[in-house]
């Protein structure tokens, strides 16, 4: 099963978002907003084809979030587009009051999340956004792993009623989910295994695939699960896997606090306590550098996942 997971080339997840927007663009309810980052978010086709349903707010993200809430009141499906940092931390109170508490059908679409933003550095590399969004009652939080999954997620959130946070990134990244299903809230089981569960989200899913293959070569059997929807979490999938393997690793391009690892730990500790290792940023800010350099320096490499899996297995006792 693992051997069947092969990269078919590289494209950025943000390009998958653009492709998803193109796929739903004909829906008259869809309105796409941006705060001066149309090019970065790959919405040029939409702007060219449906200029009347495109809203440019200028560099004014707070206003963009409010306008999106108002559009939703009028029956529209607004997609806000900017970097993850400006989609969350900068406008947290606007999202909290006008969108989440008011339960508006707004899709907050956030590119350039995490360390793999690269050279722009820590000001833009938000590592707290999953936690921020996950804490909001009623918010759906999705962090797809490649071009195809991001496209599928973009299309899926258009059909899902309620506020959604869709997190994706800047770099070209291996693609491998073209023929795989995507259902909001439903974990994607990539490989059956018995020694350790690896749960991964976003860009680190590919790293986890590489790690699982390397572990398999050493005779270690990995139950590999892609958690694209961090909230609502597929608790049944998490527990079924951990009951089988007895230990787990969580992998995310996010601070170790508040993200996927914590979401899983809550479920595991309440239902089936088991040793867990986090592959996540160790409560620090990032810095400038190339994506791969940053993943290595901050402990998010394939090797880190392999080491974490072995440690989790050893802790089973």
């Amino acid at each position, binding site marked *: 099963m693992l051997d069947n997971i092969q990269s078919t080339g590289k494209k950025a997840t943000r390009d998958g978002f653009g492709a998803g927007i193109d796929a739903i663009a004909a829906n008259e309810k869809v309105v796409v907003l941006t705060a001066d980052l149309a090019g970065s978010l790959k919405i040029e086709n939409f702007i060219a084809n449906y200029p009347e349903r495109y809203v440019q707010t200028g560099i004014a993200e707070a206003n963009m979030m*409010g*306008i999106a809430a*108002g559009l939703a009141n*009028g029956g529209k499906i607004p997609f806000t587009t900017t970097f993850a940092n400006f989609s969350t931390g900068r406008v947290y109170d606007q999202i909290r009051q006008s969108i989440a508490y008011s339960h508006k059908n707004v899709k907050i679409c956030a590119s350039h999340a995490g360390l793999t933003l690269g050279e722009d550095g820590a000001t833009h590399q938000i590592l707290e956004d999953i936690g921020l969004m996950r804490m909001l009652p009623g918010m759906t939080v999705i962090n797809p792993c490649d071009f195809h999954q991001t496209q599928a997620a973009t299309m899926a959130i258009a059909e899902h009623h309620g506020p959604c946070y869709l997190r994706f990134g800047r770099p070209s990244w291996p693609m491998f989910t073209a023929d795989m299903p995507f259902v909001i809230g439903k974990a994607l089981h990539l490989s059956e295994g018995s020694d350790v569960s690896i749960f991964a989200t976003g860009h680190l899913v590919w790293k986890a695939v590489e790690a699982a293959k390397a572990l398999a070569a050493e005779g270690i059997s990995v139950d590999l699960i892609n958690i694209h929807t961090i909230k609502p979490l597929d608790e049944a999938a998490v527990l079924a896997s951990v009951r089988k393997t007895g230990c787990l690793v969580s992998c995310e391009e996010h601070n170790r606090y508040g993200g996927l690892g914590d979401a899983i730990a809550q479920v595991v500790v309440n239902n089936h306590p088991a040793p867990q290792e986090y592959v996540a940023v160790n409560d620090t800010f990032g810095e400038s550098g190339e994506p791969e350099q940053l993943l290595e320096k901050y402990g998010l490499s394939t090797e880190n996942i392999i080491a974490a899996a072995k440690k989790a297995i050893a802790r089973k006792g």
Partner: protein
Amino acid sequence: MADIAQLKAVASQVRRDIVRQVANANSGHPGGSLGCADLLVALYFDSMTHHTDFRMEGHHEDMFYLSNGHISPLWYSVLARSGYFPVAELNTFRQLNSRLQGHPTTHEGLPGVRTASGSLGQGLSVAIGAALAKRLNNDPQLVFCLMGDGEQQEGQVWEAVMFAGHNKVDNLVAIVDRNNQQIDGSLDEVLGLGDLGAKYAAFGWEVLRMDGNNMEEVVATLRQARSLAGKGKPIMIDMKTEMGKGVDYMEGTHKWHGKAPDAALTARAMEQLAETLGDF
């Protein structure tokens, strides 16, 4: 033609409702609520086309957004007196398990409220979004938004003002309550606004001015605002009001911004405000 005497009678009852709700709850914001009572009565009982069988999307009706959500007792009274929900529900203001939360919200499904407000500076952006949706829906009705003057200190307001002017959102009427009071004192002391109308005008808005406590003037100015819609500019009404209007000891002071009167002071207020529609 509006029956001004009737509107004034409704406003008197609404003011009673405000004081009684706040006294009941022993909390809330009576000052700004009393000051804006004439405006909301004129909007809901004269100016706006609206349906009390509440529909969130509000197609082909005017929409109202309250950005300075703390004057909720005013809005709740006007919504109830308009028929959105039973007047008796005003008894539940700020109580546990109530739809009438301290600040307005959709969370408990209160008819008439479309977006939560209270954290200041957000309402104009939401109103713009609603106005854009009306445009896309070929809906000719208007969107009204009331803001406080202290609220103009929030940066988001100016993001929204700039956007609406640039994009000629001309189905939008923003009203700013110029009572010149905020929690820490007068705006002049805390952070003055200068010539607010000129600032909106500089961003491409049509600016009207009115005495928000003169019902004839409020009704006439709202008509004028409607006549100016669709002409390429968003409309701002610089509305002078007196905080606490109608209750002598609350007038002209910020002391009653967020404070409830005791039983004796409530009784004194009731003597000054005629009961015209029956108390809740």
